[in-house]
Every structure is written in C-alpha cells, then in structure tokens.
C-alpha cells in the first residue's frame, strides 16, 4: 500500500502524474464508500498542502481552496452572499463530518444529494483543476457531469473554487430531510438574490439539488423573478416550470412529493435571500 502526503501542490501533481493514485481529503466519502472492503492500493492525502486550504480574496471575487472544510466555511468571515453556502455547510452531516469533509471532496464525489453544490451553483462558482497537462478552469455546472461523474481528467485534482463578487447579493439555503442531523437530503434549494434599488429582485440565481442527476439552476424561474416585487414571488414560483427537474422515487420520498416540496421551499428560500422573513 502506498500513501503519499505531499506538502506542496507541485509534489502532489508529480505524484498524480506518476501513477494511478486516488486523492484523499477528509475521507468522509472515500471511507464509507469502501463498504468494509480494503482501501485503495495507493492514496494521496491532500490535506497537508497548506496552499490548498482556506478562503482568500482574489481579484474580482473569492478563492476557496480545495481542502477547505465545511467548518472553515462556517467560521469564515464572509459577506451575506455566502449565507446559502454557510447554511449548507452547517447542514453537511454533523460537526464531525464538517470538520473533516472538504468542499472539493463534495463536488468530486458528485452525489446528486451533495449539499454544497446548489449553493456553489448559485454563487456562479468555477472550478480550478491542475494536472499533468497543466491547469484549467471551468464552471461548476460543467465540472459535475452526472451521478458520481466529473470532468476530472487522468491525474487531475481540484485545487480551488472561485466565486465572483456580487455586490449586494444575499444567499439562502434550505435542506429538507427526514431527521435533524446526519441526513441525506430529500431535496434542497439554494438561492442568491441581488436586490434592485427599489426593493424588487434585481437578479435571482436559483438551484435545486437531489431532484436530478446533477443539481441544477433554474434559468426560466430566475428570468421570471427578475424585477419581481416581494409580494409577487409566490405567484411566480407557483407558475414556475419545474420540468427541468427529474426527481426519482426512493426510500426518502416519491418524485411527486419532491416536486411538490421543492416548489414550496423555492418560495421560502427566495424570500429569505431577499432578506425577508419566510
């Protein structure tokens, strides 16, 4: 068994290039995924690379290092734009999971029920990748390509997420589950609203998770909400076309229930993102 623990990104990329080796960050997806079986033959622990962790200001926005944990996000001093992501971070599993689990691990694991994804989608997050062929950057929506599938190429790792500034923007997130902690979402909704001067919605970004193979934005609803006054939200949401969502029936709930619940939560989340009580 090989276990690498590089302290610099350069070394990490070298190791990734040298051989088939599986990245390990918080381990909160990787270990449960073993289902009591043996661990992979070769692992590379990314958690010792200082440069990969933490949230920093960068030109035109924010950089969230790949191994930034959910606890790091909960505790970071971030503007209201990040309220949705922060709320999602608090809902990831439990304190134990939040202390170990990382943002990149969440998107690389690419579960349809990943709680970080809808919030990151509404932040217009982009993903930085580094690998043998150099670095590249792509929108999160293009990075996750299916259930447990991503655009990660051979030997590539995620190094960071980037969130552009959105002055005045406020985020919100609601997760629906069958118990209070440690629960896989039945559905979740995230929103970022940038209000206009007159108190109406300037720009709305909405994403829904656990209701399609990959969490998705709802551009039609976003367009319909632009210019909408708080009192009008309910009507717009009631009329929204949710056919882009393709929820499944499973032990957590039926497809019909998911759609019904999502519509309800959409209204609440948008109102909350506008800074109103739901």
């Amino acid at each position, binding site marked *: 068994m090989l276990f690498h*623990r590089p302290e610099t990104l350069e070394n990490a990329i070298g*190791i990734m290039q040298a051989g088939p080796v599986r990245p390990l960050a918080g*381990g909160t997806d990787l270990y*449960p995924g073993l289902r009591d079986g043996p661990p992979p033959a070769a692992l590379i622990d990314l*958690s010792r690379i200082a440069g990969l962790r933490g949230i920093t200001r960068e030109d035109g926005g924010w950089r969230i290092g790949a191994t930034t944990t959910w606890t790091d996000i909960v505790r970071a001093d971030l503007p209201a734009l990040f309220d949705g992501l922060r709320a999602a971070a608090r809902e990831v599993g439990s304190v134990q*999971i939040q*202390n170990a689990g990382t943002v990149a691990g969440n998107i690389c694991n690419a579960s349809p029920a990943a709680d970080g994804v809808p919030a990151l989608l509404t932040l217009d997050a982009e993903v930085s990748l580094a690998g043998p062929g150099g670095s590249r950057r792509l929108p999160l929506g293009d990075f996750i390509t299916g259930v447990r599938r991503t655009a990660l190429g051979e030997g590539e790792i995620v190094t960071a997420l980037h969130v552009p500034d959105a002055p005045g923007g406020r985020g919100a997130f609601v997760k629906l589950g069958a118990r209070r902690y440690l629960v896989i979402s039945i559905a979740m909704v995230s929103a970022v609203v940038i209000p206009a001067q007159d108190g109406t919605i300037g720009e709305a970004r909405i994403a829904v998770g656990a209701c399609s193979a990959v969490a998705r934005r709802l551009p039609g609803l976003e367009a319909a909400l632009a210019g909408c006054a708080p009192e009008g939200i309910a009507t717009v949401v009631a009329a929204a076309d949710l056919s882009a969502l393709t929820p499944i029936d499973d032990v*957590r709930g039926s497809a019909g*229930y998911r759609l019904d619940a999502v519509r*309800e939560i959409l209204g609440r989340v948008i109102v909350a993102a506008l800074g109103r009580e739901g």
Partner: protein
Amino acid sequence: MSLDQVTDGLAISFDLNGERLSLSAPPAERLSEFLRERAGARDVKVGCNAGDCGACTVLVDGLPVCSCTTAAAQVEGRRVETQSGLAKADPDGQALVAAFQRHQAAQCGICTPGMMVSAVALLREVAEPSEAQVQDALGGVLCRCTGYRKIIDAVRDAKGSASVAPGGVGTAMARVDGLPKVTGTEAFGDDVAPAGALTLRVIRSPHHRAAFTFGDIEAWRAANGLDLVLTAADVPGVNRFGVIPGFEDQPVMAEGEAKFRGEAVAAVVGAGERLAMLDLADFPVRWTPLPHALTPEEGLTAALLHEERAGNIMCRGLVQRGDAEAALAGAAHVVEGDFSTGFIEHGYIEPEAGFAERVGDRIEVHCCTQAPYMNRDAVAKVMGLAPEGVRIVPTAVGGGFGSKLDLTTQPFLALAAWKLGRPVRMAFTRTESISSSTKRHPSQVTMRLGVNADGTLAGADFFGTFNTGAYASWGPTVANRVPIHASGPYRFADYRARSVAVHTNCTPSGAFRGFGVPQSAVAQEQLLDMAAEALGLDKLEIRRRNALTNGDETVTGQVFDTGMGILDCLDALKPHWDRAKAEAAAFNAAAIGTKRRGIGVASGWYGCGNTSMSNPSTIRAGITADGRIVLHQGAVDIGQGSNTVISQIFATALGVPVERIERVSPDTDLTPDAGKTSASRQTFITGNAARLCGEALRAQVLRLGNVSEAAVIEITPGAIRLTDGGAERVVPLSGEGYALEATESYDPPTKPLDENGQGDPYAVFGTTAQMAELEVDTALGTVKLLKITAAHDVGKAINPLLVEGQVEGGVAQGIGLALMEEFLPGRTENLHDYLIPTIGDVPPVDTLIVETGDMHGPYGAKGLGEHCLIPTAPAILNAIADACGARVHHLPATPATVRAAILAAAT
C-alpha cells in the same frame, strides 16, 4: 521513495492523550482501527465504520472527527485525544464524567465516548452552552438508549456540583456500574479479545433466496494465507438453533440454499490484518438466484421455506371472548382501517461481537448477549457438547432491545476457536448487523372497533399479519402476545383478535422491545381516536371511560384486584392535556402560515415476563469472613439498569447500604440463571429473586444473632454487628468462601391460556399513557415534536432516575417507529439509509411516575422496559391527525407520507 510517502510498516508518530507514540501500521488503516488495535485505545468505539454513528469520535488537533473515516497516516504529527485521556486529565472531561454519572447520561455506554469527546470540544469553546448548541455539537453521535435528554442535561450541567447519594429502593442514585462507561474503561463485545486472537468474518448471501455451491475453498484459503474456512459441514453437533422449543429451525450456516439476503453460508478465519486487505466478494461461491417472497402475501403462495409449515404459516394466535361480530353489529359507530408498519432495526450502536477460546474440553464464549444461559444451551447443541461444556461470559452490552437474545456471533466463534485451538474474535459490520440479526416484525393490521353512544367500547375484531422472515426466532411469542394486548388496557366484553405469522425470504423477525405490541397499538389507538371523533368525544375522555380498573376482566378473562393503573396514568396526564389542548387551539387560531399544532394521546399496556410460561430467575449471594457482601447478579444489564436496580433491591432486603454490595457479573460459571433480559422481566422477576435472597440472608443473620426483625445489621470484617433496640449482638464470621450464603428463585404465577386464549398469561401488567405535542408544516409534511408527556405506572420506582431513562429511551424509539424507521432488505442496510432519531429529533420528555404498587412485584415494582415505547407512535400519529386532519395508516410517517395524507384528507 520521497519523504512524503509512507508505505506499510513505516511508523506513524503522533500524540495520544498527551503521550508521544510511534506505531507502524498500514497507512490507510482507519484511524479507529489503528487506535483500538495498535495504540490500545479501546475506548474508541466502532458502530458503523461509515461516519454515521459518531461512536468513534476523537479530537484531532482539538476538533472532533470520526476516526473511522480518517486514515491513520493523516494524524502524523498531530494531537489525538480520546475519552479515556480526557476523563483522566482534561478539566472539561472530568467535569463531564461527574455530570454524566449524576444525570445517568450513559445507559449502555457504547455511545458515551463519542458523546463526551464531542462535548469536551464544545465546552472548550462555550462554557455554558444552550440546548441548541449542545444539539449541534452532539448531532453527529447516535444514541439508541437514552433518548438524548439526559445527555443534554449532563452537558449543560457539566459545571454543576449537585451530588446524588446512593440508597436502597426508591433512591435516584447513580448507576452502580456507571463509572467505567463514563471514563472509557468499559469492555464491550469487541473490546475483550486477547492479543493475537484470529479474526473471523462471515460470507453471506447477497440474494433474497439462492442456491449455492462452493468452488475450491481450500485452494482459496491457502492462496490467501487464511487459517480456516468453515461451512455447514464443519458443524459437529446440530446445525440448527432457535429460541423457542420446537421452533429451532435456523442453521448456523445454510446448506445448499440461502433463504434470506444476509444469511451465512461460510466463515473465514485469519489474522486481522490479512482479512482487512481481503475482498470477501472473491470467496469461491456460485449463486443461483431463486424466486423469492418478501411480503406475507407472497409468502402464503411461495415455495415452502420449512417443509412442515403449510402455506409458510409459522403459527397463529387467538384471543376471543363474547361475540365480537354481534357486538359490532349493534354498535352505535364502527370505525375500521388497515394499518401497517415495516421492519424495524434495533439499531444498538454496538454491533454483535465477541471472542471465544477453547479451554481444555470446554469452549468459552465472551460476547454481548441478553441471554447467557439460553446461548449456552444453544451453542452446546451446535457444538455437540453438554451444556456444561460451554461457558458464556457476557461482556458489557452496547444495547440489545431484543436482538441480542438470539445467537449471532457465538456459534461461529465457538466452532472456529474449537477447531483451531486459538482464540478467535469477530464483530459484525453494521451492514451484517442490519441484514442478518433479527428485526421487529412488519405488521399488517385490519381492525374494526365499535363504540356505543355513551362512549363505551362495544367490541373489536382484530386481524394482524406478521412477516416473520425466513426463520422462527421469537415469531411465536409475537403471534401469542399480540392478541392478548391488541385490546389496549380497556374493557371489552366482546372481542376477537387473531394473528398469523408468515415466513418470507426476509431477515428473521424476532424480539424487539414490545414483541409486536407497539405494532398493534398503532392500529388500535388510532382507531380509538377515530371512534372519539365519530362520537364527538374528547380523546382523553374516551380512554378514561373504558380504562380497565381493579376487578375488571381483561380480554383473557384475567382479573387484577390491585395494580391496574391505566386510569391513574390517564388522570396524571389530564392537566397537561388541558393545557396543551388550549395552547394548540390558540396557536392554530392565530396561525397564518403553513404550520399547525396538534396533540395526541395513546395508552399502552404490557404483561411482564413470558406469556403463560414458567420463567424463573435465581439469585445467589454470600457474606465472606472478611465482611464482603457478594451478589451473584446474573441478569444482564444491557443499559437498562438491572445491575443498579437488583443491587438496590437486594441491599434493601438485606438491610445494608447499597454501596457495600459487590457484584459478580453474569457468567454461566459463576452466576445462577437469572433468565433472559427481555419481556420487561428483570426488575420484576430477578428483582423478586434478589429480594427473596436478601430476605433469606437477613433471616439467617437475625436467627444467628437471635434478634428481632427490626434489628439493624452492620457487616464488618470478621463479624456482623446487630443492634436491636438497645441490645447489641455480634455474630462472628469465619471460614473459607462464604460464611453465610443464600440462593433464592422466583417464578411469576401465571395460568395457561385455553383454546380461546382465556387464562392468566401474566402475573403483572404495567400500564402507560403518553401525550404528544407537535407542529406539522402542512406544506412539506414535516413534523416537529414539541414535547412528550409520559405517565407510567411502574408500581414502585426502585430508582426514579432509571425510570426516566427508560421512558426517554423508549419514547425516542417510538419516535423513530412513527416518523422515520424502516428496514428494507437490500436497501437500507446502513445507518445513513436506515434513520434513527438524532439528538435533534427528541423533544423534552416529561415523565410522570405513577406508583400504584403491585401484588407480586418486589416492593410493588413492575417491569417497564417495553411499555415506554408502546404508546409513543400512536400518540404522535394521533397528534398529526389532530394538527392537520391527516391520518397516517402506513408507517413511517415520513414527510412524503404525511404530505400525501394531508393532500388525501383535503380531497
């Protein structure tokens, strides 16, 4: 090799509880395994290996993480703290030790390390946390015993200093066995194996039903460097076990055909490290899936699972009196409905575990069990040994709730250790535990209930179908118990209840807290509310009007002259009911959003001990020459508190301070048979044996001193001092072993049931009424519990704090049954798909202890363990209906189900 690369065998250096350690290990080994097996930190518990239970929580550089999802090599250079270290040297850890003891925040204690470690991290940041902060900090640790409320109390009161004095019957003292649980030294099933023990893992069927043949097992064993492979052919005795005479139908390992997904077909034994690297999916077995039946409907027409059981019907139950049909025909209103519940997983946080070793011609099995003597006899049959050839030494049990009555690890361990002549250990994985050990029976109930215009019950007809799975286990007990209890604690002149248990290709159903009664209460108590609605009668009132009282006949014709306490329970709820009713009405009148409040009540009753069967307990005790008082206490404490209760009863009967009692823990070589820990029988039956034993010993002492009953006994080294009024006497103590000793048994008086189920099945019934207050978000179908008020007639509370603990824990399980739990074979085989309540799901529980005494119980005490959860689910379901009009017939009432019921009710 670069410096930042580690491979097998390279040392990992880290700080464990303040001590620098350097240990070699496979670097990707789970930190939990590494700490337990290489660093000796067995206080780190493993409940799931998947991050779901939090039992393995440790602090890494001060932050709580799950050690089962952390690689050992990730702690290189870091600081790791575990419960035992924190309890010893950390001020918050020490404060929590005292607080957990004071509040009885540990029951079985298996979750306690995770709880306390998480709590230390919280207290370091927040000295006086709010309830919500405690819930957020401890939300990642599951507890199946306590219902969490005492844990919250303990953490919030960590800085408190109140003390709880020990005392006899009636004293809310701390658990006598609590300290090891709160300091990390308690030894559970997987904590006791000697170094060098080999590890055993079981090969199980991945299909609901399949024929199988083995490939070249020997070649595979040799190629993988294993020590042994076991199959059915290796069983020297009878490859059958069971718990009920005549129903021993389950093989240790299947022969030719596996009858349920998860059934054992073989076992492999080898060095732990070797097995950890092995993919058991490669084991040479060829499966041929066969048609299977998963529901009773399918079972009735499927190929027979057991030749002698026509139609796959394992057994039936019947209780009838009067003429139910005629009574229903004459009733003012008849309400009826179909109700169902699913498989419920016990969800103890400690998976089945143990080790065995051969000692001469005997085999010794150390394991977590609820039934040492039954295990002994069953293992002996499998091994082809006399019962005396087997010794069962129960370890601490990390929760049982019924499923640790049956054999699980024991026969495998015994077989392997016997063959190899070396100690062999095993712990079930969580998936094995969920998929293979017994579950609560899924139920389908059809019931009709008739009421008269004056609110009295006219009659009832109940039919319950129970999915008993592939093997019998305790299925016959469920089929018998349900018809007796399906009336609820109410008067019925005309009643008929029938039950049938049907085999399917599912995990065997067995004993789970309540033996079928919680399932029947879901139907019966909801129908009672529907009847009250038909009459326009208050829901508490309809129960009061029909409650059994002393002198009434139960549905089996049994009459209790004392101790029928259901009316007392309902009356205890009355002021709370009136308050809650007014509050909910006010809330709803003002509500503009989607939230509505509701309140619901339900009753329950439960006969303590086996149904119409002898089930004695024996207790032995002695006094040594040097003045030690030794109690051979064979009733396994699975967290419910029998060690404490039995000690309190015995001390009171003997007339000595409880802290003077030394216990010899259950061990088939050292303690007489105190029966199994089930059927709420230990306080009542073993308690009585302890009382008789204490009294017998006291009588001996008094006789020797020639003093009166009123004498005060003081036992000192070499002598017993007796003070009787003004007179003082000294009885010298001398000799080897016990200078004085007594052994006493108790068997509750019952009478067999006739062909109509008429008779006296139990010597004692305990009764309860619970009330739920909750809020439904009608747009989402989510339910937020606000409060549970639980009135319980326990006859006499031997230890009121333990009573509260039992009630809170039972209520939490009732919440799970009502709102979230369902085991679906092959689908919810882990603790992230099978949900049990977390610390955020159990509201405050107000326990109202009712003490009506009892004719038979020790000092008037009755059993309690199972009663606590019977009314919870129906009370919650009734409250949901009260809040939003939605009547949930098929559990669990998940948000989707509740929402569907709301939509259905609106149309």
